[in-house]
């Protein structure tokens, strides 16, 4: 088994996939804690569908580097969703449902109408569930992913205490002069970036799992914001790494394997949490 793995790791694309997978897992877990606690996880879900629609449009327009189109569109939608979510008059969740289902339907329609690919169903399936795409990353995509992940981690550390304050009690934060709106915006933009990055790894339908599961697992056991954040990151990285290895060895789809490992980890953490509370 080790020799098989060693053989695989001689190929640069496998090493790239591994590196990208771990970085994405790290970023999504860091933001996942805030997302879950702020009840923003549905925004992540909505945005992943938007990203799917954007990819469809990009492929129809035949844009060379899809990420350069998908990223700004998703960031824009993140800002829009946050705005509507905060206005009391328009129900935020309805707006998100509209946007996400709409993007999904229109995206598929466009792909159906204009795609020149002979394997449309396969294309759609891989965009939704992730597939071998992570193994075909170009060097530019890997570089972009490394730079963006570094930016996400950097921003998170820089604003860690502010993010905690805004997450724990937004009203108090506002009352004491924190620009809560600006931090919500930063959070939304970071989420959008993570979702676009994670599309490559697990596909758009499974992104939410990557964001939500590590945070929920860590919350079963740990009881301070810092420890939950750190352990969510650790759990997420371990799950992503083992998921990628398993999928290489057994030929299962990368995305769903990673999610399956995350589900296992969640079960384990719930069990440990219960035992510890006894």
């Amino acid at each position, binding site marked *: 088994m080790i020799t098989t793995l060693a053989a695989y790791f001689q190929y640069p694309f496998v090493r790239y996939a591994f590196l990208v997978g771990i970085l994405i897992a790290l970023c999504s877990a860091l933001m996942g804690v805030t997302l879950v*606690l702020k009840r923003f996880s549905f925004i992540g879900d909505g945005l992943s569908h938007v990203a799917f629609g954007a990819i469809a449009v990009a492929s129809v327009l035949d844009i060379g580097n899809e990420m350069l189109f998908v990223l700004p569109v998703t960031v824009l939608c993140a800002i829009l969703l946050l705005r509507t979510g905060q206005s009391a008059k328009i129900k935020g969740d309805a707006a998100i449902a509209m946007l996400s289902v709409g993007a999904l339907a229109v995206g598929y329609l466009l792909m159906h109408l204009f795609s020149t690919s002979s394997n449309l169903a396969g294309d759609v399936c891989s965009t939704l569930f992730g597939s071998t795409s992570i193994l075909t990353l170009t060097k530019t995509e890997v570089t972009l992913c490394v730079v963006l992940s570094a930016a996400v981690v950097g921003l998170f*550390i*820089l*604003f*860690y*205490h*502010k993010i*905690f*304050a805004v997450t*724990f*009690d937004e*009203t*108090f*934060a*506002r*009352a*004491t*002069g*924190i620009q809560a709106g600006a931090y919500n915006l930063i959070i939304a933009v970071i989420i959008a970036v993570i979702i676009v990055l994670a599309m490559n790894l697990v596909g758009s339908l499974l992104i939410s799992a990557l964001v939500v599961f590590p945070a929920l697992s860590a*919350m079963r056991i*740990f*009881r*301070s*914001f*810092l*420890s*939950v954040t750190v352990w969510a990151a650790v759990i997420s990285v371990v799950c992503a790494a083992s998921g990628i290895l398993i999928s290489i060895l057994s030929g299962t789809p990368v995305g769903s394997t990673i999610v399956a490992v995350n589900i296992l980890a969640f079960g384990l953490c719930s069990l440990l949490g219960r035992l510890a509370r006894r």
Partner: protein
Amino acid sequence: MLQLICHNLTLGYDGQSVVRGLSFTVSEGDYLCIVGENGSGKSTLMKAVLGLLPPMEGTIAYGEGLSRGQIGYLPQQTLVQKDFPASVWEIVLSGFEGRRKFRPFHTAEEKAAARKNLERLGLAGFEKRCYRDLSGGQQQRVLLARALCATEKILVLDEPVTGLDPVVTAELYELISDLNQKYGVTIVMISHDLEAAVGRASHILHIGEDIFFGSRQAFLQSPCSRRLFREGGRA
């Protein structure tokens, strides 16, 4: 020295007014109690004072050395989720965020001040405890310590004893009086409990049908207070 001057305020939501024609002032070291029926607009007034809700009419001015972001605040109900993972220490330190601007780490002075505030509220040794495992009274004291980290000048408390048992309620009132008398922190407290409020406050603001603002003595002699006490002591 005047810290807060509210003049002819009309407050409300979406063009519907809740409170009309409200004027009052708060000076340094005052203990102002705001009383009034449920739904009379006490929490609304608080939001306006904190700058979270723009007044429909009238003005709110802050005195010298006080600006909008320098008011410590204890919300009516902190809508913290039951399972939010946060230690006492993390919550108390978060009181500094408003004034810290862009420095990513806490200074030694801030940590010392946080520790002092925990001590003042009888929470020394609670730093590592998880917020959600504390009793209601302890949780309120943690939030008070956080508010003190945000400012030493003026604390705004919205029904801080809701849901606490009588013993813990008395303790919390005692602590708040202490902050006011020993440390000179101005207190603006919304209260449901007329007797407790009148017992400790230096000034009373009653909002509702009849608006009253004045010192405690003036309030006790006013027709407003006689009517309220006749109705059973609950404002």
